[in-house]
């Protein structure tokens, strides 16, 4: 087990470097000369040259990359060009809400997706099965922004049950829950379809296996067969799918946060990019990318735990 985790961690290192390099490249490619910006428009060329030297901009790219990593390690991501706060402080405030949104979306959509997929597999070919499959194809074809706007119109305006702007507070408070309801509903809805589809095909596959036949032969009820022998094994590919779909969820989160003015990383990123706030844009993209790597790492480890065969490879 520990070996699997270590192996997986080792694989993540080059990926992490790739991400850091991307962040670095973003700064390098951004228009404008940082030394000139620092010196101001009236500075003489000599002053600009001096500042460039102080900032290390005259060094070879590889040295600059080293310095960049050094600064990152110290949590120094620069300052936002718009708010003049440090990028790190802006990011720290935004990470929590985004995690909350992810959790609040997955916590209801994954169980529902798994339940729907399992029932569809058990009643294969029935009207229920066909309805679930049709719904899930429709679900993956809907643009996320449309789901958000329909929910706002329906549950925010027509029947004003939930607020649809901003965040009300931490998840464990009533106000926080009320505010996160609509964003979490929107984001969860796009996740049910893929989970249901994957669960269905996975359960169908497992129900065909020998050990399920044995379980039936020894006289277990259908319910026990499916819950104890079918679903348990069928969930392994579902975990992988959830991992693969995290990128998709991230995309959804960026849109959802922006529409609901929800103060998470996604909205911060879009705002920073649209206002050409390069240090902040770079910071948000770095955090999103690193978050994505970490989640994938967790999913892989979970996968190895669930499926003993993975460890042997």
């Amino acid at each position, binding site marked *: 087990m520990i070996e699997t985790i270590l192996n997986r961690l080792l694989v993540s290192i080059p990926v992490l470097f790739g991400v850091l390099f991307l962040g670095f490249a973003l700064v390098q490619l951004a228009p404008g000369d940082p030394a000139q910006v620092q010196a101001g428009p009236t500075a003489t060329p000599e002053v600009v040259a001096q500042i460039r030297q102080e900032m290390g901009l005259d060094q070879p790219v590889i040295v600059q990359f080293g310095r960049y990593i050094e600064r990152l390690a110290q949590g120094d991501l620069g300052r936002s060009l718009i708010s003049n706060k440090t990028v790190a402080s802006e990011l720290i405030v935004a990470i929590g809400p985004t995690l909350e949104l992810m959790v609040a979306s997955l916590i209801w959509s994954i169980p529902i997706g798994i339940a729907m997929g399992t029932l569809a597999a058990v009643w294969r070919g029935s009207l229920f099965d066909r309805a679930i499959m049709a719904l899930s*194809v429709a679900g993956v074809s809907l643009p996320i922004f449309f789901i958000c706007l329909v929910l706002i119109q329906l549950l925010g305006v027509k029947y004003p049950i939930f607020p649809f702007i901003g965040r009300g507070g931490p998840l464990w408070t009533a106000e926080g829950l009320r505010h996160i309801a609509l964003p979490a509903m929107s984001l969860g809805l796009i996740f049910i379809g893929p989970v249901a589809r994957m669960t269905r095909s996975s359960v169908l596959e497992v129900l065909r296996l020998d050990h399920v036949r044995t379980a039936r032969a020894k006289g277990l009820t259908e319910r026990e067969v499916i819950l104890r022998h079918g679903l348990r094994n069928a969930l392994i590919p579902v975990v992988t799918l959830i991992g693969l779909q995290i990128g998709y969820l991230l995309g959804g989160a960026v849109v959802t946060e922006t529409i609901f003015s929800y103060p998470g990383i996604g909205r911060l990123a879009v705002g920073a*990019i649209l206002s050409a706030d390069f240090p902040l844009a770079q910071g948000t993209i770095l955090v999103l990318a690193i978050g994505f790597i970490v989640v994938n790492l967790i999913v892989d480890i979970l996968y190895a735990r669930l499926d003993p065969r993975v460890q042997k490879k």
Partner: protein
Amino acid sequence: MTTMDVRNAALVDQAPARRSWWKALLADRGAMLALLVLTLIVLAAVFAPLLAPFDPNANSRAVMQPPAWSERGNWQHILGTDGQGRDILSRILYGTRLTLLIALVAIGIGGVIGSGLGLLSSMYPRLDPWVMRLNDMMLSFPAILLGLAMVAVFGPGVWPIILALAVASIPDCARIARSIGIGVMSQEYIEAGRAVGLTDWTIFRKYLLRNSISSIMIFLSLRFGQVILIGAALSFLGLGARPPASELGMMAAQGRDFLLFAPHIVAVPSVAIFIIVLCANVTGDALRDVLDPRLKS
């Protein structure tokens, strides 16, 4: 069994299979309907300049007019007008054009590079670990992140988004092409081709590419819907297509401010995206089930 027998057996196997996949597809009424609608949409997009009743960018005084079937609507603007009084039907036609074009170009670029990499690594096992490692790295950048990064560097626009969607398509495509390619490379005709001294380039072109291209195309068609959705989402956020061009995601975003008084400005382009993506997904699923169930996992 000799090589000849294997070949004959394969031919015998293939002939009825070829006829039956068409039959199976024709029998799938849902898929045929989806294919028909998709074809009509593509035609409408291609011939947008001929079909559009108005200039898509022409303002009029009839602002926020609802579609024809609602109470205050009229048949002059069948799908109503937007916040600037522009005819929504005309904008939808042009918008579909741009939305489809973005997705097609992105998938085309990503598909060619990705399947090229995948097929090469199936042909040259020495290359394989490197390509796969590069692939793993690229998989760590979901499309939306690439999109954000590209726009951060190049500024909002259609090309940064196409670039992001193309790059995001490469790793999946390479993985699929590789596994298809490995299957093809283990066939005896490859060995036979090598034995008679064909060059690698000929083997690649005549055997590997020809025998894997249909499966790769099916995979790309499955991806098409997703690429449209991500592209539209990026444009919705204001990172993609720029006004005054019409793009479906951007049109929906422009209607956001009028959601309460004129919900059709958001709904019409959103439903258009939904129909396109739904048809693409249903068609892709059916094609895969009929032609290449191996891709199902």
